[in-house]
């Protein structure tokens, strides 16, 4: 095991960096998608709610590995060959980020919708009764309360997404699992390698959970 660490430690750490980079890109855009789609699904407009529901159901209904193949191979093929436009190349990092963002975004949208709906309607009514427009009331009163209740679910989704990056090894992105496979192929030490890799994921996720706990405490009202 020490030999693996001394020989491949750097390589595995770099791969962990790539995993985190991918997760970060994915989560960043997932938050934006989740926010937009989540809010669309509580609007009064039927069209908005319909579009949001279709998006969420579509993404949730397809395994992420299929989505990954579709975006990485399928979309450029459609663009370059079927439509004949040509010139489209999609790096594994970009395809992977899009894939994670869409997948995680759909789940985030559901978390955000549920979070908003968990806030008592009286809060919105009180804000509206003072003359605040819907969006201001949402922004100043409802969302801050909703986000507080959403934090545990969001952190949970972050963790799932971080682990889901491993699925993107199938499109050849040099993240941790993909790199570990190469290490095993070179050394045949599968027990040691996978134990190390598992430990690496575990450490990162435990750190993330600690940060979440601190954040949750900080967001308690009147606790300063």
């Amino acid at each position, binding site marked *: 095991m020490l030999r693996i660490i001394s020989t491949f430690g750097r390589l595995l750490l770099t791969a962990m960096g790539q995993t985190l980079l991918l997760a970060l890109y994915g989560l960043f855009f997932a938050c934006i998608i989740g926010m937009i789609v989540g809010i669309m699904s509580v609007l009064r407009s039927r069209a908005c709610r319909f579009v949001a529901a279709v998006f969420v159901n579509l993404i949730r209904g397809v395994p992420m590995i299929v989505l990954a193949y579709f975006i990485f191979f399928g979309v450029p093929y459609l663009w370059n060959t079927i439509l004949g436009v040509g010139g489209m190349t999609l790096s594994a990092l970009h395809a992977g980020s899009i894939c994670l963002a869409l997948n995680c975004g759909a789940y985030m949208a559901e978390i955000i919708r549920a979070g908003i709906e968990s806030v*008592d309607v009286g*809060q919105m*009514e*009180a804000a509206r*009764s*003072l*003359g605040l427009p819907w969006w201001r009331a949402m922004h*100043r*009163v409802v969302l801050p309360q909703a986000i507080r209740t959403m934090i545990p679910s969001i952190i949970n989704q972050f963790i799932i997404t971080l682990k889901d990056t491993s699925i993107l090894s199938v499109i050849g992105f040099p993240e941790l699992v993909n790199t570990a496979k190469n290490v095993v192929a070179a050394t045949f030490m599968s027990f040691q390698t996978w134990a190390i890799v598992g430990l690496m994921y575990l450490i990162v996720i435990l750190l993330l959970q600690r940060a979440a706990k601190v954040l949750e405490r900080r967001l308690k009202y*009147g606790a300063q």
Partner: protein
Amino acid sequence: MERNRIAIHVSHLKKSFKQLEVLKDISVDVKEGEVVVIIGPSGSGKSTFLRCLNRLEEASGGEIMIDGIDITDKRCDINKVRERVGMVFQHFNLFNNMSVLRNLMLAPVDLKKQDRETARKDALAMLARVGLSDKADAYPHQLSGGQKQRVAIARALCMRPDIMLFDEPTSALDPEMVGEVLEVMRHLAHIGMTMVVVTHEMGFAREVGDRVLFMDDGLILEEGVPEEIFGSPTNPRTRDFLNKVL
């Protein structure tokens, strides 16, 4: 203040939720400075009627004029009207994510573009008026029900409304806290605020109300000065209701 100007004019208001007809045909005028108290059994449409007055519920038919502005007209800027019509809710609905002071300052700063310092002074003065100066930095969950409701009234007053709507403001309170809230409302009535109050507090209705409306089944069945309604009600349903609650 000129006491004869009409502050609220409602004619043939109807409101249905799907098949259910909650308000059947409501017509009433409220003059400036008048305190109108609405009583009636639960499910009679009192709260729905009140909520129509600032369009928290959309009227299904009829006309509602607030200070001459038809709020049933889709083109009217309802937010501008709401700035002048304060509302107090049964369950207080204080913004849980803000301190008491920020609850009071939110709308004035956001909508009237008051600078924060002016808004702060104003809010503190308003808190003093409801006897809660020491609670400025408290959060809603740290207050008793009576205190919450007084903050809610102060919050509405910070917008300097011309009209105040009260939707069963004491129904969710422990009995010993009802008095402190009614006291604030009594004071408001005395300084000439136009008020529409839905309540089960018959003592308050009798003492403070200029006029009492008895509602049942989506209609105003009887209206008059408190002495008439409580002393010699003519409608049998009013008599029946008062017998049960008094």
